[in-house]
């Protein structure tokens, strides 16, 4: 049990200060923009919730939202189980463990735009190993023209990029389970599945919550990799929320609508994560 001690605030104060500077201030600015029509620095008109209404009726926003949910659900459904499986198949100790852990960490260390580049080079039907192999096998594959192909390669890329995170977190969780738990399970004659279900999974809970939350949030915010890999195409078929927002804010410079979009986007992610977090916490209390 953790001790109650309010002096621990001294330890978290620096984090609070730095995050307040880089998060609270900018967020206030965005909210400010979202309720005004801005022509230039001196000409602003208060418009209330007009930008919010406009955004919620925008069919391109709604399409991007639907694509976003589909993408996030798909990658989570693959990455979480696969990550746990990989963590479980890692040897617990020995020289090979370190080697595998380093290998797993590699995709997490690669800059996101490089991940996009790697997969573009890998998947291109003309010069890419993956694309060319499929073509040689007689399977038509062209992610720049075919919507399904573009989605397949995006999901493969995201799984490649982020399963390691789930695996490393799960491995850390598994490593903290002490041997007496396994011995007790052994005495009770538990099967491998029962050991996983009743010994390991409950102990992995806290790291898995973090893993699911991180993957949920990051997949909802994905921008760089699809931007590099498919550029949101073919058509708008892989344009997710971030990319649409950036187009609005930077290319079209629609400050008000972009700010309203930002606030809605942020609240949406916040709401989803809060729902997940509280439901998990509640089920833990029961």
């Amino acid at each position, binding site marked *: 049990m953790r001790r109650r001690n309010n002096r*621990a605030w001294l330890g978290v104060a620096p984090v609070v200060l730095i995050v307040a500077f880089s998060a609270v201030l900018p967020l206030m600015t965005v909210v400010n923009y979202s309720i005004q029509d801005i022509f230039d620095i001196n000409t602003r008109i208060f418009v209330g919730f007009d930008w919010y209404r406009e955004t919620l009726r925008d069919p391109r926003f709604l399409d991007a939202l639907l694509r976003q949910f589909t993408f996030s659900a798909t990658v989570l459904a693959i990455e979480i189980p696969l990550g746990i499986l990989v963590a479980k198949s890692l040897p617990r100790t020995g020289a090979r463990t370190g080697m595998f852990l380093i290998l797993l960490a590699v995709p997490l260390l690669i800059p996101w735009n490089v991940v996009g580049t790697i997969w573009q080079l890998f998947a291109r039907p003309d010069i890419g190993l993956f694309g060319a192999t499929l073509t040689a096998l007689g399977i038509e594959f062209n992610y720049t023209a075919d919507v399904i192909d573009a989605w397949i390669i995006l999901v493969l890329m995201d799984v490649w990029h982020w399963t390691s995170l789930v695996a490393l977190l799960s491995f850390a969780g598994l490593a903290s389970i002490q041997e007496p738990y396994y011995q007790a399970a052994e005495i009770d004659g538990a099967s491998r599945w029962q050991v996983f279900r009743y010994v390991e999974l409950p102990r992995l809970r806290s790291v898995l919550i973090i893993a699911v939350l991180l993957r949920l949030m990051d997949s909802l915010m994905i921008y760089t990799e699809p931007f590099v890999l498919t550029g949101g195409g073919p058509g708008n078929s892989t344009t997710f929320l971030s990319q649409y927002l950036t187009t609005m804010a930077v290319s079209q410079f629609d400050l008000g609508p972009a*700010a309203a979009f930002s606030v809605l986007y942020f609240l949406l992610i916040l709401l989803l994560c809060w729902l997940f977090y509280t439901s998990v916490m509640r089920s833990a209390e029961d």
Partner: protein
Amino acid sequence: MANAAHSLLDSSLSHRKAHWLLYAYCGYLLLPLYWLLNISLRTNRDIVSRLSVFPVDATLANFAEIFTNPVWYEAFGNSLTYVALNTSISVAVALPAAYAFSRYRFLGDKHLFFWLLTNRMSPPAVFLLPFFQLYSAIGIFDTPLAVALAHCLFTVPLAVWILEGFMSGVPKSLDEMARIDGHSTNVDWFAKVDDVHIGVRDKYFSGEEVKPERPNHGQVTHTTVGDHANASQRSMHIGVYLTPPRTNRVGRVEIVNDHEGWFRDRVDILPIIRA
């Protein structure tokens, strides 16, 4: 039985399946990287003219370009500056916070943790415009410091989580054990240390009950003196049960010898958990 337990500990998958999965996954991780390396060792003309699994006429010309063209290598310099700044800031602020979250409960801890989480949830695109204006206003726009500070928004909460997870993975009993062994480096940073003075007579070696000098501060329930305890030993461990308001506090006890004066020192009081 120990062997059987080990087999469960190793993996709940059978070994063959586990190996198969692990190597297949590593292949999936490595193939795109290999292809990147392959392409980086070939000329543009070679890349588009044929598909070769191994670079036949391998050349380092592409790498030479990176290291001789200032457009490329200056970008690397900028990146390194930004990374150094960001890492120092993130670790410096996240380390004490992670320790606090891992070892203590304090006012608003859960809300604070969730608030940090919310910053990790904010889409970077949202911050594009405000950052531009904020950093222009304080005159650090277009500097590595601005990028480093902006990225703290994402790296600091992540650092806190990861460090918190690892710190919580270290059993708290290890802290106590370290303290028993006199590792003062592992001090309880935020704990209030009470000075409790208890006189202990030399009779405690014989296991007789010893009376505390100031009973309202605590009472000695038992003494534990290891094999190594002798006249030259500068410290020893004494179990002290502290009266309720002081339960779980860490304090110090002063040992005084009445007769010979062979021992006059202070030892740490450890909280004793009653079974």
